[in-house]
């Protein structure tokens, strides 16, 4: 099987799902389409020799972030049988800006030297070593950040009496 075709298949998955997110006004659809995007991106990661990142992407984005998003959607909208829709705003402006952005990025990165992706042996082992040696401080900081964010989130979201129910 040609590796290039799989590339394009995953890329197509990403593009289509992102387009779906852009088009749909249903929040839940957007959320579930986001799963597809993440899956596609994870696939691309695997192809780029980043297995660990890919699985982490699956684990955290799909298992964590997305679940949170869906919970958020469910908790902040009154369930009354209707689908949860979001209003659009400044559509023309947004589209204009993002198209311009896309165009400029594409233009600016044109001519970027692309080289063949080569397999990296024992990536996991090396990554593990790197995390606990070269990037140890950053790793710890991220850990503390996570802890702080979790405590902060729990504090913010906590119910405080009847007043704000």
């Amino acid at each position, binding site marked *: 099987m040609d590796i290039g075709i799989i590339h394009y298949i995953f890329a197509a998955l990403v593009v289509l799902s992102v387009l779906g997110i852009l088009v749909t006004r249903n929040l839940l659809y957007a959320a579930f389409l986001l799963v597809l995007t993440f899956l596609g991106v994870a696939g691309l990661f695997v192809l780029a020799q980043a297995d660990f990142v890919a699985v982490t992407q699956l684990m955290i984005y799909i298992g964590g972030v997305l679940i949170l998003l869906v919970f958020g959607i469910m908790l902040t909208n009154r369930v009354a049988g209707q689908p949860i829709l979001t209003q659009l705003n400044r559509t023309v*402006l947004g589209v204009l800006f993002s198209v311009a*952005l896309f165009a*400029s990025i594409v233009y600016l990165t044109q001519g970027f030297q692309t080289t063949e992706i080569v397999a990296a042996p024992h990536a996991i082992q090396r990554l593990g070593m790197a995390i606990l040696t070269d990037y140890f401080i950053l790793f710890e900081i991220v850990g503390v950040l996570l802890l702080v964010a979790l405590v902060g989130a729990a504090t913010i979201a906590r119910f405080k009496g009847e007043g704000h129910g």
Partner: protein
Amino acid sequence: MEQQPTNIWIWSAIAVLWLLPLLSFVIGLVLWRKRKSGLGKFSTSLLAVSTLLSWLIFGINFGVPESLLSLSWWKVGTTEFSFSLALSGITQLLLVIVNTVSLLVHVYSLEYMKDDPGKNRYFACLGLFTFSMLGIVLSDSLLLIFCFWELVGTSSYFLIGFWYKKESAALASFKAFLVNRVGDLGFLIGICLIYAIFRTLSISELQTMVDAVQWKGEVFNFERNGELITSSPFMFTVISICLLGGAVGKSAQFPLQVWLPDAMEGPTPVSALIHAATMVAAGIYFVARVFFLFTPPALFIVAFIGAITAVMGAVAAISQYDIKKVLAFSTISQLGFMVLALGVGGREEGLFHLATHAAFKAGLFLAAGSIIHAMHRFAHETHAHFDAQDMRLMGGIKKYMPTTFLVFLLLALAISGIPMFSGFLSKDAIITKAFSWASAEGGVRWLVPILALFSAFLTAFYMSRLVMLVFFGSNKTPGLGEKSGLTENGKLITIPLMVLAGGSLWIWFNWNPFGQGSWLMDLVATGRSTISGLYLETTNEIPHKTIAIISILASLTGVGLGYVMYDEDEHQTIAELEETTTKPGFWSELSFNNWYLNELYDQTVVYSFNQLTKASSWADRRVIDPLINLTGVLMVVASVVVGWFDKKVVDGLVLLTVRITEFFGNIARSFQGGAVQKYIAWSLFFTLLVVTWILIK
């Protein structure tokens, strides 16, 4: 001056004896309103320690030259004011007098004030007084003396107005305070003048400068910090008179003696301590301290003031019926005597009389207090209402209160100048000095010894009148029978009386009852030079024996006259007493009303002040008020104009600014309406601009 090595033990003992009364006052402040807890015994024991120390110092330091303790106090620029204390013969004497009398009064007060609800306040004030009086005695700096001078005045104010709920007492304390202010003004001016000329306020330094003063015919030359200063005698006279002003106020001299009789509104022990023995003597003491500054013209004035005061007080004492009033006028008279002594150059004689007078006048007051206390108690027991101080209601008391009678008799003889008592010695010394002074200069100066003799005669007279009225004859107290009635007071009252009576005997001052002067005069003599000593002065020595005989004769005449005149009983009912205050007749009324001095002041000083007040009030209402009103109207007119300008022009400008700001503000506001996405859009827009710029470039 010869600086004695400072004896640390002596000075710490002085510090202790000085601060113990202050401690009593501080504790008294805490217990100010407590009725039960007895501050009295505590204060008394503190003062006993203090007194013991003062006697010890007197004994140990006897005859030792002056020593000085100087501590840095405060600084203004480069000028340093020192906290300096001096210990000399005069200081030691005064320490002993003040402490002893104060201790006796404390002991006496334990009984006398036993039932008073404010006794803690009383003892606290006594403590404050004793502390500040000792301060005056010890201080070497004029500034320090002035501070304690005022403190003494304050505590005197507290004690005169001790029964402040009684209107007369409150008014008397005001009066005493105000009259003292007049004298203190002079004192303060004097201090300022001294500083202006000598650049120092230390008495010992002043003395040192005066020691070195040179008399150059018309002017003085003296050295000040190495430079030679020339000053006229007139300046010194002015300074002397100003300093005398303080003494005149405090020592109740003519013309400021009006406050002292009124001060008798305070408790009798207070009168004994403050208004007979110590505070009023402070003026004498102070003049004695700065005596070296006085010029002959100033001393002349001093002598006449003393003489006039002595005679006026004695005359006023003759016709009083209030036993304390008699003693008060007597005090004025005796103080006049002392001032007279100073004026005739008899610094030592004056201080000697101060010492003897302190003993017998304190004793007289305390004895009078004993009688009043007994009368009060009697009035209280019989539920009668009468004036416990009116002599006309007394009589024959010697039967009821033999101890008091005996003591009073001794003290009366002492003050009358009868030989064998201290009063004779000191008075005789003063009169002798006055005669020799007068004979040296002659002229109008002869009036002084004559007035002194006259007042000595009057003193004997009114004292015998007092004794006759109070102790002899039949008793006239309403409701007093043969069996029930007045009784002798307790030991706490009689023992101080006996001590003071004992202190009035001749033996303590001179072995010879007819002798001249006393060893005390040698003790207080400084031997330093004085300004007046610069003038060549000849003194005619008049034989002492002659003077002594004359003065004894004057005293005996007074006593005899008094005995003869008041031997008869005057029977009057209370109703009659209330109708007649005094016997009719010009001299009688003049005497009774103290020469109408109060009325004179009312008519002149107070009246003119009132007139001035009225005039200024009128000016205020008729002149100043219209002016202010006019200004007001003008302001209103101006403000209307300004208001129009403000509203139309200034506000217009401000509004213009506001509108412009609002315009731009609205534009700026539209960028940030709280819509997060707008912010993002804008930031993106500018990012794109940058990208575009990069692309174009």
